[in-house]
């Protein structure tokens, strides 16, 4: 098993004729994930370099290719919310948003519509999702290094950071373990899918024996997971690496590497996240290399 993407994933890419979209298409095809259609309004009727048909609308793409069950949003920030809502409106069950810098107000609309339509939205600013040997969606794991970094295994990885999704997965793989699924949930203020949403899926997944999260200062998503662990809703072992403690002396409101990484005192600080996760029973990793050491204790 695995979560979110697997060998049954059939993808559409919105923005397939753009730089990010076409690169994601080749990378996904290289990993044997079928990308059977693309959408770029105004370019309907064309074919991409890989021979993938391009349509003007999601509705048309779905009509021609009813097996599509996931869409990657790789369009510029100005058009991204509209593209995501188009996919959600057409009830594609999984919508993965790669685009960064979408205004919070627009993300709020995407989330509200996703809830209404029962669509799983991952992102914005998500590097992608990979279930090693099965499928991947997004820009996660370039073909040059994907098999060195990701290996099939029993660890579920959830990260606010794309780079750290790969770094942590590589460290897990080099320690002789592997991943069931690794997910970049993005570091925006509002997230389509949170740590807890993913942890709930991992909790039900037979392949997953432990969960690793990479969290950051700002927001309340790490605390929300801690509450669920404390309430025994999440019973699989959770190992957490939380970044941004250095920022405690910076002015409140300073925004760091991700839009959601907002310096705050008290609730939302790295210290408070670590404290609540620890209290709930999660293991706290001090460095990325500390993760496999802790994993070997619980597996």
């Amino acid at each position, binding site marked *: 098993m695995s979560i979110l993407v697997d060998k049954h994933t059939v993808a559409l890419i919105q923005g397939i004729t753009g730089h990010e979209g076409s690169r994601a298409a080749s990378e996904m095809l290289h990993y044997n994930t079928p990308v059977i259609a693309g959408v770029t309004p105004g370019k309907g009727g064309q074919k991409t370099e890989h021979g993938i048909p391009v349509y003007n609308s999601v509705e048309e793409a779905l009509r021609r290719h009813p097996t599509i069950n996931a869409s990657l949003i790789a369009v510029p920030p100005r058009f991204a919310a509209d593209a995501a809502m188009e996919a959600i409106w057409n009830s594609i069950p999984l919508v993965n948003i790669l685009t960064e810098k979408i205004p919070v107000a627009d993300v709020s609309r995407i989330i509200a519509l996703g809830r209404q339509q029962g669509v799983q939205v991952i992102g914005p600013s998500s590097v992608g999702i990979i279930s090693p040997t099965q499928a991947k969606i997004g820009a996660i794991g*370039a073909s040059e290094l994907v098999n060195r970094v990701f290996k099939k295994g029993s660890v579920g990885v959830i990260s606010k950071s794309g780079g750290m999704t790969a770094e942590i997965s590589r460290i897990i793989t080099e320690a002789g373990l592997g991943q069931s699924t690794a997910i970049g949930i993005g570091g925006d*203020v509002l997230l389509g899918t949170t740590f807890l949403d993913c942890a709930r899926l991992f909790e039900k997944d037979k392949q997953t024996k432990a969960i690793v999260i990479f969290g950051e200062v700002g927001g309340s998503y790490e605390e929300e997971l801690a509450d669920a662990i404390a309430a025994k809703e999440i019973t699989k072992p959770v190992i957490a690496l939380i970044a941004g403690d250095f*920022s405690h002396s910076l002015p409140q409101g300073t925004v760091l590497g991700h839009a959601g990484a907002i310096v705050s005192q008290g609730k939302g600080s790295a210290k408070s996240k670590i404290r609540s996760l620890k209290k709930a029973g999660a293991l706290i990793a001090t460095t990325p290399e500390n993760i496999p050491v802790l994993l070997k204790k619980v597996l």
Partner: protein
Amino acid sequence: MNLLEHEGKALLAKYGISIPKGKLITPRTKGSPIATPAVIKSQVPVGDRGRKGGITVIHKKAEFAQAASRIWDTAIDGHIPQHLLVEEAITSTSERYISLSYDTTTRAPTLAINAKGGSGTAKASLIQLNIFIGLPDFLAREALVAAGLTPSFPLISTLQNLWQLFVSEKAILAEINPLFELKDGSFVAGDAKVVLDDHVVAPEARPYVQLGGDIAILASGGGASMINLDALMKAGGKPANYVEYSGNPKSDVVRILTRQVLSQPNLKGCWVVGGTANFTDIYETLLGFVEGLRSVKPRPTYPIVIRRDGPRQREAFAMLEKVAKEEGFNFHLYGPETPMSESATTIVKLAYQQK
């Protein structure tokens, strides 16, 4: 982006919310620009200015010069005012608190109301909103009743006007505290705190924070940059700056950033660090680093520790070795076999051993 009070109030007025009559003044302004009693308010992006000495009431015009000069000279949390706002003093029957923001627990817009306004408002009543439904009369009434207030027409329209501002400007926060209630039942905004979305107003901005230390940092990746700053501080290093570049930047972007970061005074070392990149072209970004490095005067002789992994990392390191040999830079190169945190210890050792 945090707006100053007068900028926020201009937005409130644009959306039909009453604000006190007032004038913005510069240090050149002599004498009160409006009738007394008046309030003089420091225009700095900091909360709780009243308690921190940024707000004064004057009752006679003669008091203006002394009161204004004191506020001009008062830095609040390090901010020195460029402007002061002089406003008519409002006589109110009560003060309320209202705000709109996004809540990360509900992942939806949230209306907060407190029947008691003023400084240090904490326990507000919170109502989760749906961005598609907005704030129709019935919801505004419900929210006001829940906060223990009478849902009067002027109060409902003030809430709705604030909602219009919030969604139309794509703001992250729109707050009025205090919201003055006048004898005739109308409302006037005593203050305005509006935070606009950087993704709307400054999409090209890159987080850059000066930290006052002596190790220059070029960190890649939003998350990796933060975990690496943590590691550097734990290893005893003093970072000169926080900066982050990610998303496969062009070499030019890295070149300009390198020049900026390495132009800081009194550097003892430079740390270029990132995790395993998914798709960032390591050769391209490190080429940008070398180009930036060459343009820094005086020529850096301090140790430069580089830890990177990702597409074209080997080619990039071969290029760096050649550059180090031919141009004599003090490079220390590490790939994925060296943990990021170990490279933090290395730069700290090398940087502080030199002297």
